[in-house]
């Protein structure tokens, strides 16, 4: 008749905490391993359930828990059925643990999935283990007097071979890491910690199990899961400051508290010296681990403080810069006003002289006076630009909105500027293609200034060819566009990005020897933006002409 309980077991309490059956090491090593692994994998899944690394890590944790649990059961449990089941599960849980550890390491180190061939090369050899699990090739019979399964060694040997096969593949990962120069120092240190610690942990699993097998002292096997603690500890160290797991302070604190409580409590459970020595040793190890963890957290907090300090300084500097900028604008405004008034009289008297209000002028003096008039005109324009910039920057630019016809105004501008174009031998063409009446609500003076500026630029920067001004609209989008297309010097990609900035001119602008402050486009864009529009520039490159488009909202 089959006995219900192992002969040497105490059936009353199912023996879960009977120190007389199993080595006391078991209680100490296995329970924390299971608890910590469950906490860690739970946190990893909770924080990042879709991440491949998190999922592989959870699989690893699941098989570790299963394996440790079944080993625990075979040592502790009293019912024969349960012990037998745990004994039979050993090959499958061990090989699954090895396989999932490899998958996790591969995914963690290379940050990619295994290719199909490699995946099946690792997975398929696992199948015979599953296939032979319920057969006599696993456990031939069960010795009740010792509460041990007796195997004929085939599946055990196969499992060892499979484990070694996986270990060799982990070594391959380690070798591949050394040949991968792209890893950063910090990341490569972490990769090394995790590869080496998992390799050592798995190695100790099979070495202790093998020693247990050949000597018959299965107590050796209980050391395996302790080494697994090392792996779990290194995992948690990485988890605390590695983005991949996204586990923060909470996880590490929970871990340290859990470890200290669990291990510390063992000291008070029983006064067996053996337990106390090991527990004290581990407490020491965990204190170091806890210190490392809190140090990394402290470093993080220090970094954060430093950054917030820097941000504060930056804010102060910014306020100061803003004040300086305002002062500069005010200065320019005042200076420009001061410059403008005398300039007005210079221009006035120069044109009066030219008109002959002061009698005939000697031919010799005519040219210099003409130059004075022209230069003072240019200077007045430049001062006007500076004044506009300072008005825009100080927010004092006034806009008087009214409804007007953009098409008519643009046509007038073209008529005014055609004279300049003809003087340079250019053709200035005006076209319009409107589906609406072309009425907009904007500041008429500013809009004219923008179009004048863009068209004037087109004439300035074109040596030969044509300048086309084209007014079109899009009723659906309620926008009206003025395209100014020339066949001039064009500009390259870099210039396209910078021409709308203050004091920026295209690099080839000087090649045509034209005066300019580099403020026209900046002022135009700011004014267009203030009126709910924008200006875009397009060019195929140097000497390929350019197209500027003023885009304004249509008043329907």
């Amino acid at each position, binding site marked *: 008749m089959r006995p219900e309980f192992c*002969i040497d077991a105490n059936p009353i309490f199912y023996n879960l905490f009977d120190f007389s059956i199993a080595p006391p090491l078991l209680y100490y090593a296995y329970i924390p391993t299971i608890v910590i692994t469950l906490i860690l994998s739970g946190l990893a899944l909770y924080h990042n359930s879709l991440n491949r690394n998190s999922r592989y890590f959870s699989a690893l944790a699941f098989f570790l828990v299963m394996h440790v649990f079944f080993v625990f059961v075979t040592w502790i449990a009293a019912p024969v*059925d349960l012990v037998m*089941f745990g004994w*039979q599960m050993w090959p499958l849980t061990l090989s699954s643990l090895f396989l999932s550890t490899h998958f996790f390491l591969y995914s963690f180190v290379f940050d990619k999935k295994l290719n199909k061939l490699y995946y099946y090369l690792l997975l398929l050899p696992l*199948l015979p283990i599953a296939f032979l699990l*319920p057969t006599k090739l696993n456990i031939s*019979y069960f010795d009740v007097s010792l509460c041990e399964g007796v195997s004929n060694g085939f599946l055990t040997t196969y499992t060892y071979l499979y484990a070694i096969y996986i270990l060799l593949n982990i070594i391959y990962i380690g070798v591949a890491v050394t040949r991968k120069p792209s890893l950063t120092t910090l990341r490569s240190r972490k990769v090394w910690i995790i590869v080496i610690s998992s390799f050592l942990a798995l190695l100790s699993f099979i070495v202790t199990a093998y020693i247990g097998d050949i000597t018959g002292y299965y107590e050796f096997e209980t050391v395996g899961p302790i080494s697994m603690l090392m792996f779990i500890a290194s995992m948690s160290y990485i988890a605390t400051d590695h983005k991949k797991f996204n586990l923060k302070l909470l996880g590490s604190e929970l871990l340290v508290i859990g470890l200290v409580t669990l291990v510390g409590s063992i000291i008070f459970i029983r006064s067996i010296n053996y337990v106390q020595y090991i527990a004290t040793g581990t407490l020491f190890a965990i204190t170091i681990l806890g210190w490392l963890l809190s140090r990394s957290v402290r470093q993080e907090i220090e970094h954060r403080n430093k950054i917030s300090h820097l941000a504060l300084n930056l804010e102060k500097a910014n306020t100061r810069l803003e004040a300086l900028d305002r002062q500069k604008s005010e200065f320019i405004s005042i200076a420009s006003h001061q410059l403008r008034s005398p300039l007005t009289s210079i221009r006035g008297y120069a044109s009066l002289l030219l008109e002959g209000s002061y009698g005939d002028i000697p031919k010799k003096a005519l040219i210099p006076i003409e130059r004075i008039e022209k230069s003072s005109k240019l200077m007045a324009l430049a001062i006007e630009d500076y004044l506009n910039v300072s008005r825009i920057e100080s927010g004092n630019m006034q806009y008087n909105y009214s409804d007007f016809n953009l098409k008519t105004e643009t046509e007038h501008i073209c008529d005014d500027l055609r004279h300049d174009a003809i003087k340079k031998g250019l053709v200035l063409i005006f076209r319009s293609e409107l589906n609406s009446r072309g009425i907009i609500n904007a500041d008429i003076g500013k809009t004219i200034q923008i179009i004048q500026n863009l068209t004037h630029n087109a004439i300035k920067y074109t040596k030969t060819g044509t300048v086309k001004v084209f007014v079109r609209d899009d009723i659906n989008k309620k926008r009206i566009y003025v395209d100014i297309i020339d066949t001039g010097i064009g500009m390259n990609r870099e210039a396209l990005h910078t021409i709308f900035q203050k004091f920026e001119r295209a690099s080839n602008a000087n090649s045509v020897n034209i005066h300019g402050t580099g403020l026209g486009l900046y002022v135009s864009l700011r004014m267009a933006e203030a009126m709910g529009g924008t200006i875009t520039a397009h060019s195929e490159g140097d000497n390929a002409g350019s197209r500027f488009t003023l885009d304004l909202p249509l008043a329907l």
Partner: protein
Amino acid sequence: MISYMQSFTKFVNATLMMFIMFSVFATAYQTFVAEDFQIIFSEE
């Protein structure tokens, strides 16, 4: 073709998992229900 390959891979994976699960259940059945395990008492 790619989606066919992906679903094929999923099918193979699912089959493998089912097979492993089945072997676990078979072991559990044989241990807990069928009780056709050979039990010995060593001399000790």
